């Protein structure tokens, strides 16, 4: 009986060319069920009390939920592409589907950040699979959906200099951005109204340098010289990114999958850390990439967990109207993570 049950658990079933174990199926089913139940428990929450928003809230949450599942599948496909390890692939699916920030973003917050995330991750996956044109089209779509996608721009530029992307393909980015601006200015769709409502959330907080984002402005005060520091901080960040890009262009590194993910994680952490006006959702893309990085390099797995907690603490500060811990502490933790990833980047010689 004992052995029969053990064998059943560890039994492998062959579906076409793919071999999958009962334990694997149990994990996928279990994590999917837990992810669904997790979302249903917080579905009733309302983060933006506005009539127009309330009308579409459920629709946004349902669409987000479907796309979150899709994101988990894309991420697991990405992990498979990077590691060819079935255990890691299945774990990645579950981890992404159950990430508190991902679940909270859609089911609790009612934000649609998962849309740009899906496009961004599909774009990166296509780039890894060497479908470069498709990758850039998807990236442009990601930019259309959210400005957060710009965090990845330095990586695309670096990959262009490494001869992995054609200059022509990069044109999709300004095309996408211009299209977005035209749409915003001319077309009056309900979804755009909803997006405008979401921006109104910040009205009560005033103009700040950081909206619950644990970044450098938490050290100096998010409400000090907001207008001046916003301009200076933006230039400062762009300058820093440029310097790092030039350094990396000169550096002798392998343009492989590992470095691609490493660079992506680094810039997705670095830019929101220095850029003014960032909010609690700015670290979502970095979280996704950190999961991939952790899957590739298990020794860095703890960074994914810590980043996820820091990121969720930022969400929590929004939900409860203030943080339990001083935000400067979270900023220090994030700085530590950036330093470690930066160290990995420094030692990634050919």
């Amino acid at each position, binding site marked *: *009986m*004992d052995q029969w*049950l*053990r064998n059943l*658990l*560890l039994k492998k079933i062959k579906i076409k060319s793919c071999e999958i*174990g009962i*334990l694997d199926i*149990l*994990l996928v089913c*279990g*994590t999917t069920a*837990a*992810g669904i*139940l*997790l979302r249903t*428990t*917080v579905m*009733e*929450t309302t983060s933006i009390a506005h009539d127009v928003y309330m009308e579409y809230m459920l629709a946004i949450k349902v669409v987000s939920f479907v796309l979150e599942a899709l994101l988990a599948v894309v991420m697991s496909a990405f992990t498979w592409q990077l590691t060819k390890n079935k*255990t890691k692939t*299945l*774990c990645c699916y*579950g*981890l992404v589907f*159950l990430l*508190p920030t991902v*679940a909270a973003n859609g089911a*609790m917050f009612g934000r649609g950040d998962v849309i740009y995330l899906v496009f961004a991750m599909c774009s990166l996956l296509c780039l890894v699979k060497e479908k470069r044109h498709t990758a850039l089209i998807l990236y442009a779509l990601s930019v259309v959906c959210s400005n957060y996608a710009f965090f990845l721009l330095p990586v695309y530029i670096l990959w262009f200099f490494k001869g992995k992307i054609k200059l022509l393909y990069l044109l999709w980015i300004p095309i996408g951005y211009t299209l977005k601006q035209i749409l915003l200015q001319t077309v009056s769709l309900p979804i755009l109204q909803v997006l405008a409502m979401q921006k109104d959330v910040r009205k009560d907080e005033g103009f700040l340098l950081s909206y619950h984002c644990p970044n450098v402005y938490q050290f100096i005060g998010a409400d000090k010289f907001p207008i001046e520091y916003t301009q200076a901080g933006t230039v400062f960040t762009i300058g820093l990114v440029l310097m790092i890009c030039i350094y990396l262009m000169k550096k002798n590194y392998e343009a492989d999958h590992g470095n691609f993910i490493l660079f992506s994680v680094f810039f997705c952490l670095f830019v929101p850390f220095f850029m003014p006006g960032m909010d609690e959702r700015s670290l979502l893309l970095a979280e996704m990439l950190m999961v991939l990085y952790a899957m590739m390099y*298990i*020794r860095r*797995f*703890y960074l994914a*967990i*810590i980043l996820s*907690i820091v990121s*969720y*603490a930022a969400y*929590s500060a929004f*939900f*409860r109207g203030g943080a*339990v*811990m001083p935000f400067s502490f979270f900023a220090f933790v994030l700085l530590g993570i950036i330093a470690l990833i930066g160290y990995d980047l420094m030692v990634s010689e050919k």
Partner: protein
Amino acid sequence: MIDQLVRDFFYKKIKLGNVVIAVTDILLFALLTAGALYMRYALRNVVAGDYKVFFEPWVATLREAGGGFAGLAAEFEYVDYTTPYLTILSFISISPFLNTLLLMKIVSIGFDFVAAIGVLCFVYHEKKSTTAAVLAYGALLFAPTVVANGAMWAQCDIIFTSFVILSLLFIARNKTTTGMIFYGVAFAFKLQTLFIAPLYVILWVKKKIKIQQFLWLPIVYFIGVIPSWIAGKNLWELLTVYLFQANGEMDIYALSHKFPNIYQIIGTDVFLREYADAGIWLTLAALMFLLYYFAKKEYNMTNVLMVEMGMFFVMVIVYFLPHMHERYAILVDVLAIVFAFCRPKKLYVPVLVLVSSFAGYTVYLAQNNVVPLYVYAWIWLLLILDIASDIYRQINQNYKTAEITC
């Protein structure tokens, strides 16, 4: 001449059964026991809030119903203890000696020593060193949370903890049936025993225990409720005490009850209903990942790895599960001591575990919050990550070694 005699006396070794023990170890054992008893004596008069609010009225109710076995028929407005501990309280209620508070503390202190002996035997079984075993015995008896739990607070968490330790000891000695009976006894006392249940699942997958041995849990639990059933209580209610506890209705007012876990970082006071449910699903999901990985991987399950894994499971559960009380990590406190004496390089683990765990006790007992609990929550998180990486390394190292040997 006398000098040498004294020296020889201290270094003398005595044979007790199969064990050769030095006089110094015996003296150390005696001194630690005396010290542990004195510490508990010093705390005898402390009256915690729980005693006034819960224990005293419960014992009074049992006394009114006749005490002893007859007292078990008593009708309570609210009680979340199972029959075995209520039986102890019922006999305490009619005891002609000492007062209720002291008797409750004496019972818990008795189990402090049972747990300490269990720890001693486990460490001796692993290290074959009487000195290490006696030191582990002393470390447990001097652990602040163990001392505070019973001797100060009059709580009984050490009872189930001591049975879990005995269970692991017997499993380590390959007496798995006895081990599972002890686990069943622990379960009959407290629901928190289930925090370590994932370890037993892994032990089954790794062929350390048999599936039918899990039946000891319901069997011993059922035997435990028989006195109350005979006294006239409803059997269904007796069997479903834990279901009432598990719904968390009594603890809904905060996501963490002074335990330094994730809720101290994100806030214990908002989205009480939502986070309570979401936290359960997240914890279950985390366990699924761990069970999947530990079950799938091929490695040699050593006794020390068993303790470490058990400690790890409990650490993860109390860190993510909502409504955890400051006392719920006592199993981690005890297992960390066993672990550190088996792997002395990891001595910092019980130190940090006890410091973090005791912080919660301090907030409750002394109403004191010098260092915010979120600081300890971060320490706990770092410990979880450290233990996780250690287990990962061991599992993979183990496997590689096995491959090389093959």
